[in-house]
């Protein structure tokens, strides 16, 4: 009798034991979403959980093939660390968070066993081991140095192609290359000198140390500020999201009213080829008329179209919403229509006032054969916490980084409260 009871007790124990072994060794489903989907509004079938609430300014984020999460902090946290390494448990929630790297910044990218991270002037790389952990946290290789940082548009975002090149954004330290930046009525500097060393994307080698401007190539110019960029594997091409110009009304009140200023200059997605010029500061893209317009600093009047050999955007999005991350989805967890499409994290606007602010969400732009195809749609909304908080710009969370996990989960980092979200698809 006693033996039988023991046997009965042992059977379920053994079952549980083998199940947990199964969980460790083979593919399991995504973790359960939070009961409230982490406060997000998502399409049917999707759920979200908060992986971690760091309380730090988490800019860009990556997830290694082993599921280790790295987040770049805009400035070092209280312990002086500028990169967080987050290790989630089986439930998807953080088990441990450690830090390294004493510098603030935005850019972070992982490829072929290396983690690339940027300060606002330099780019470093770290070796990743078989567990997805950095082997040289205090001694990274400095691959790029001396990039211009004059505080405005200071982020250096990075991405790699499949040929050993790294692409770095150097944002223009100006709104529209005026003689006096953002000054009412001030005209544009002729032959904008900023473009020599900023306002574009620079290409360097990913494995060469201490490269400066002279070692790299100005891959594309006329880009005011790019924070979100990604390499499209289908088109084998670099795509970037530009932050469009500000303050049309403040600078030229006789040409633009506050509504036009809030709504006209689109945030553009560009598909870049080497040598392309997207036209900043000489033009802006009018997202309502779908036209390249001559900038008022350079003779425009709100009606004249731009002249010059400037590329067309691949897609245009509403003004001032600050696209801070771009990610081409290649996973298989989400339904087929998401595959190879673009997710864009819109940090949220400020330059729409006195009109209501907008953004604070992740948008999906469908793609077909490496090109945008069809209308974009809001995918993950309510990072702000409420429509009122979005309208006033007092958002609880501001999405800033995007990453794809090895199982196809979509990770979103927020640099307002420091939350890292994981969005999963559960419906089969």
């Amino acid at each position, binding site marked *: 009798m006693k033996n039988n009871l023991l046997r009965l007790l042992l059977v379920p124990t053994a079952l549980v034991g083998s199940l947990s072994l199964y969980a460790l060794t083979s593919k399991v489903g995504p973790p359960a979403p939070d009961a409230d989907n982490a406060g997000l509004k998502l399409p049917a079938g999707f759920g979200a959980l908060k992986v971690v609430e760091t309380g730090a300014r988490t800019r860009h984020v990556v997830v290694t093939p082993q599921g280790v999460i790295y987040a770049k902090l805009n400035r070092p946290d209280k312990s002086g660390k500028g990169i967080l390494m987050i290790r989630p448990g089986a439930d998807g929630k953080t088990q441990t968070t450690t830090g390294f790297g004493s510098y603030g910044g935005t850019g972070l990218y992982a490829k072929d066993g290396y983690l690339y991270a940027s300060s606002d002037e330099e780019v470093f790389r770290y070796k990743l081991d078989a567990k997805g952990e950095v082997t040289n946290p205090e001694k990274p290789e400095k691959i790029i140095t001396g990039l211009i940082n004059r505080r405005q548009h200071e982020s250096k975002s990075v991405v790699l192609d499949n040929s050993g090149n790294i692409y770095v954004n150097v944002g223009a330290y100006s709104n529209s290359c005026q003689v006096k930046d953002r000054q009412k009525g001030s005209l544009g500097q002729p032959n904008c000198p900023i473009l020599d060393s900023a306002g574009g994307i620079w290409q360097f080698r990913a494995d060469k140390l201490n490269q400066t401007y002279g070692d790299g190539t100005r891959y594309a110019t006329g880009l005011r500020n790019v924070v979100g960029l990604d390499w499209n594997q289908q088109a084998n091409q670099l795509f970037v999201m530009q932050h469009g110009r500000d303050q049309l009304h*403040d600078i030229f009140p006789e040409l633009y009213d506050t509504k036009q200023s809030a709504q006209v200059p689109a945030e553009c997605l560009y598909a870049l080829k080497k040598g392309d010029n997207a036209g900043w500061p000489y033009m802006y893209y009018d997202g309502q008329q779908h036209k390249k317009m001559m900038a008022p600093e350079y003779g425009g009047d709100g009606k004249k179209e731009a002249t010059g050999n400037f590329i067309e955007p691949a897609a245009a999005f509403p003004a001032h919403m600050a696209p801070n991350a771009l990610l081409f989805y290649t996973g298989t967890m989400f339904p087929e229509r998401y595959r190879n499409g673009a997710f864009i994290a819109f940090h949220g606007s400020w330059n729409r006032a006195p009109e209501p602010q907008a953004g604070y969400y992740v948008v999906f732009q469908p793609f077909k054969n490496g090109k945008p195809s069809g209308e974009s749609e809001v995918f993950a909304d309510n990072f702000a916490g409420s429509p009122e908080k979005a309208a*006033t710009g007092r958002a609880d969370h501001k999405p800033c980084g995007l990453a794809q996990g090895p199982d196809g989960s979509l990770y979103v980092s927020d640099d307002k409260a420091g939350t890292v979200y994981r969005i999963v698809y559960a419906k089969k």
Partner: protein
Amino acid sequence: MKKLLVALAGLLLCGASASAQKKPAPKAKAAAPAAALIAQGKTVYTETCLSCHQADGGGVDGLNPPLIKTSYVLGDKTRIVKVVLNGLQGVDIDGEEYNNAMPSYDFLTDQQIAAVLTYVRNSFGNKATSISAAEVKAIRAANKK
């Protein structure tokens, strides 16, 4: 419990107003800014400052500084007048970085600058002395040298 809290709050309020009565108000704070000056200041703020510093004066994280109880807004008049006259960039405010560029607003009249700064120093929860057109004029003259 609720009643107790209300009673406590009442006591605190009484205490506060009693001590306020006891203390002679500093001379400079005696006069509340004139309503007309505040109204003019609000107009200037809405047209000139709001697009960056926002309707609630809260600014924008990392870009445009808040105007709520910062040392710049509440502190030295000369410093804040000079910010309006000369613009500001690359300066940390109360330990925070703000990376946008504020241009010069020296095209505003002395009266407009006095009004908008008096408005800002007495809005968004702020309470500080008025700034007069004469003070702005003197600071502008010294600023040019």
